[in-house]
């Protein structure tokens, strides 16, 4: 009886140990990809290499330009709805001066970077895992090595760079469109005219908050991209692993995003209160 109990406890301990080891290994892999990709970026040799520049431009076009219409549409819908709800709430508590600070803390700082990151993951992120996975399956990774081409520079860095730049610009556009749309909605509904609305926004906005929006807009898609690349790299030679890695990549990014939001807000708040 006791032996069985000990045996069961041992098995449980083994499972927990294996899970922790697996987690640590995947964290190590993720950090490794991040460091080598950053190294490839900061060495700046990619600027003189037409092959890498072609990929950077293609990725920027695919991730940034082709997403623009959908991001504007989402911004108009989500942003308009958020601003409207905030204004209704501010009116119900009879304090319209809340509009600026609420829009800033909710829409500008949280909703815009997160929505852009979600959109990036659903559109480009899935394509990245699938592409990197297929490259593993087809043996293109070994082939690139044989040509003396660094995967970090040719495959990963352009995607991460495109994610960061597109994220930054799309977040800014998202904020502009949603505020503009929200302002129009409020003036159509006679809640607040457009110039008063802009004044409220200006009153409720501080420089460090705008800075936080830009950092988040760049950081979230960049880390998501690195995570998805790491998932693509683990496909190996089995094509059946591609859909598995896609779904675990998307779920992983959602979890990672939640953790990042929490950590960033705590750290940023602490930094500005120093």
């Amino acid at each position, binding site marked *: 009886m006791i032996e069985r109990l000990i045996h069961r406890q041992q098995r449980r301990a083994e499972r927990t140990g294996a899970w922790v080891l697996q987690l640590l290994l995947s964290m190590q892999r993720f950090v490794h990809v991040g460091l*080598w990709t950053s190294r490839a970026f900061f060495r700046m*040799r990619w600027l*003189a*290499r*037409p*092959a*890498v520049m*072609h990929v950077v431009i293609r990725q920027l076009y695919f991730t940034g330009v082709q997403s623009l219409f959908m991001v504007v549409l989402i911004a108009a819908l989500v942003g308009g709805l958020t601003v409207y709800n905030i204004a209704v709430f501010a009116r119900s508590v009879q304090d319209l001066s809340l509009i600026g600070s609420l829009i800033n803390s909710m829409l500008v700082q949280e909703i815009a970077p997160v929505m852009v990151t979600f959109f990036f993951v659903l559109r480009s992120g899935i394509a990245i895992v699938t*592409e990197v996975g*297929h*490259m593993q399956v*087809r*043996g*293109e990774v*070994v*082939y*690139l*090595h*044989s*040509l*003396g*081409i*660094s995967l970090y520079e*040719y495959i990963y860095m352009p995607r991460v760079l495109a994610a960061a730049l597109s994220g930054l610009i799309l977040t800014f556009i998202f904020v502009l469109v949603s505020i503009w749309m929200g302002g129009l909605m409020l003036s159509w509904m006679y809640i607040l005219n457009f110039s008063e609305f802009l004044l409220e926004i200006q009153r409720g906005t501080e420089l460090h908050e705008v800075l936080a929006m830009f950092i988040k807009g760049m950081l979230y898609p960049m880390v998501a991209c690195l995570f998805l690349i790491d998932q693509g790299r683990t496909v190996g030679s089995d094509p059946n692993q591609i859909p598995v890695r896609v779904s675990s990549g998307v779920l992983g990014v959602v979890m990672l995003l939640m953790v990042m939001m929490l950590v960033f807000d705590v750290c940023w708040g602490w930094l500005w209160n120093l």
Partner: protein
Amino acid sequence: MESVNIALHWNDLTLCRATLPNDHVKRGERVHCIMPEAAQKELLEMLFLCPLSQGCMESKTLWITQGERTLHAGGDEFCQHIACMLQHRGLLANLTLKENLLLPALYSDQKDVLQRAEQALPYVADFLDMQDKLHEKAGERPPYVHALMSLGHCLLKKPAIVVAQHMYTGMEEEYAKKFRRKMLRALKVWNPGVLYLSRSHVAQLTFPFDRTHILKCHKGMEWQ
């Protein structure tokens, strides 16, 4: 690169826990090494992963001599004198055939490498019978096209040493013959040293070799 006294040497080269007999490949020589695929992969990693600075030191067991100079595997200069023909893959699916052919030159920092490759491209494409397909997207292609692309890379680079894996796996008889003819013609003109890697003696049919080495891996290492 045009210098005739370039040779690839190896000494105490251990692959899958077995040592390959010490030898060298000079320009114009053809040396055949029969070894399992795991050992071939290990050798190719030594040749090409180190120069990418991905965590390994300069190799003291593999080097190229160029006159008085010694270029150890792991350096950029070493890579300039050597090219590789892989067994299974010779192109990237999402690029056009032209981009695939020019890929190593497009990746180079030196502008003259790209200029030279672009000048030679029409002749190489003509030799490979690809002149009218250059702008097609590569996608999925048969082994013959992969082999042709590998040969095309070598022809554009014209290195002194070529490390080639057995290319005919999965190729139809007719295409294998066609590729063999093209490869022999190309080698005759540019005359590099060839280190040919295969799993069995079947490669003897490819072309006559000056020397053949057999590497037997220790048990349990063959399929890793």
